[in-house]
């Protein structure tokens, strides 16, 4: 475990026993505490009520109906426990699920939210990093989520004012990248990224109260339906 990672208290809901065991293994290996590992949404809600974890990891498709049980549990938990971070992960990215999740997130306010493809779990370091970002109130949206939501978005208010470069920066913020990382990806200086970011905040009408929090709000305002 790296020095930067604080130990988290985590609840997991995933119906596949092999994947669940794998998750518990990699998280425990890095010194995090998995307070509950369950196989359906109902059990997850009960576990969150009982253990009050920092963050939950939820598979979208779970018993009994194998449609979006996990997502609905995540949205309910979002409502009942606004300070618990929610990381949803699934085999496929569904635009509507992402929109529902972000809609619920922007309604409830602060705590972190993430939506990742299940494949990302394979890069253990990045996955755990994304999880701790969500636990800390940040975002971790799969690049595919960002692309799909932007494709589906028909909104023009505020967003229309953003330049192409600013949209790119906001997309990377949505994935949860820091200014330094964004500068590296776009091959520009960190100073100019900071400038883009402050322009985005101004154009989206976000007051300079809390820099980190504003990043999340900008993403939610940008992507949520």
């Amino acid at each position: 475990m790296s020095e930067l990672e604080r130990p988290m208290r985590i609840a997991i809901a995933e119906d596949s026993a092999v994947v669940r065991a794998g998750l518990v293994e990699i998280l425990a290996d890095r010194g995090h505490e998995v307070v509950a590992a369950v196989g359906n949404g109902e059990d997850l809600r009960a576990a969150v009520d009982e253990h009050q974890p920092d963050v939950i990891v939820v598979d979208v498709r779970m018993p009994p109906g194998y449609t979006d049980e996990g997502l609905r549990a995540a949205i309910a938990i979002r409502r009942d426990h606004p300070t618990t971070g929610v990381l949803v992960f699934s085999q496929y990215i569904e635009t509507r699920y992402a929109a529902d999740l972000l809609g619920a997130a922007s309604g409830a306010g602060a705590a972190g939210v993430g939506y990742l493809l299940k494949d990302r779990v394979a890069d253990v370091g990045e996955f755990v990093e994304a999880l701790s970002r969500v636990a800390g109130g940040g975002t971790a949206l799969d690049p595919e989520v960002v692309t799909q939501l932007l494709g589906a978005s028909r909104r023009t208010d505020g967003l229309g004012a953003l330049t192409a470069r600013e949209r790119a920066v906001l997309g990377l913020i949505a994935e949860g990248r820091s200014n330094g990382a964004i500068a590296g990806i776009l091959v520009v200086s960190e100073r100019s990224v900071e400038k883009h970011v402050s322009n985005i905040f101004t154009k989206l009408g976000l007051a300079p109260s809390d820099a980190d929090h504003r990043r999340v709000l900008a993403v939610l305002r940008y992507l949520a339906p």
Partner: protein
Amino acid sequence: MRFLVRSWEYRRPRLWVGVRVACGIFNVALGVLLLASVRWLGPLTWLAALPLAGAALIFWTVYRLQQDSVQRVRELEQSRAGLVEDSTVRLRRIERDLHDGAQAQMVAVAMKLGLAREKLGGMINGTMPPDLRRVLELVDAAHRGAKEAIAELRDLARGIHPAVLDHGLGIAVTTLAARSDVPVELLVDLPERPAAAIETIAYFCAAELLSNVAKHSRARHASLAVVGVAGVLQVRVSDDGSGGARLEAGGGLAGLADRVGTVDGRLQVSSPSGGPTVVIVELPCRA
């Protein structure tokens, strides 16, 4: 009614209905002519009843033909709906099997390898204490998982299209019989090779029926006969088990019967309580 209709009539139904109607009208005309000739025929006028009765019979067959084709259209509609439903259900099952099986297995494998890679990296950089035993454990578990995923994919692929069918139904059912948990006595007699679609349906019937024998019948012996005679392919599975198999809506046998029905085949079950069970599937050799 089918006995009154020759199979070649289905190819030109209008023509043959036309011929029947023309014959009927001719008979009616003849009957009327005979009736009108009462003055000359005298007591022999009763002969007029013959063409009129003939006409009645002909028109009756035309009417029944019509009914028959309405019935046939209804059957085809039902079997087509069944086929569409069946393929949707099958696709959904394949997707679920993939999602729960090989896909989940590979995610777990990738997680284990990811963790092993990090540990090895950390050990080489000196940021982690050397613990090769733990890395070996992880690689070992990943290796096991990958092999399980391969086995699952192989089973799934076989369920979609059994590659063994490429060499003919005979070899395919021989493999099937050899793989059965209950000993199977096998008889194969296929003078000519049935159409590919028919072979596939016959194969899945044999596979499902044999797996039913192993799962439900508590039989000690089973027999499988696959015989082609006069354009009909018969698959017959019997066992000396406890019987009680039913063709119930939504059951496995009903699913098979639907599938068999899509090519105008038939499935019959005889399974008195206490056994023995005999299931006979008849399929046309050409779809």
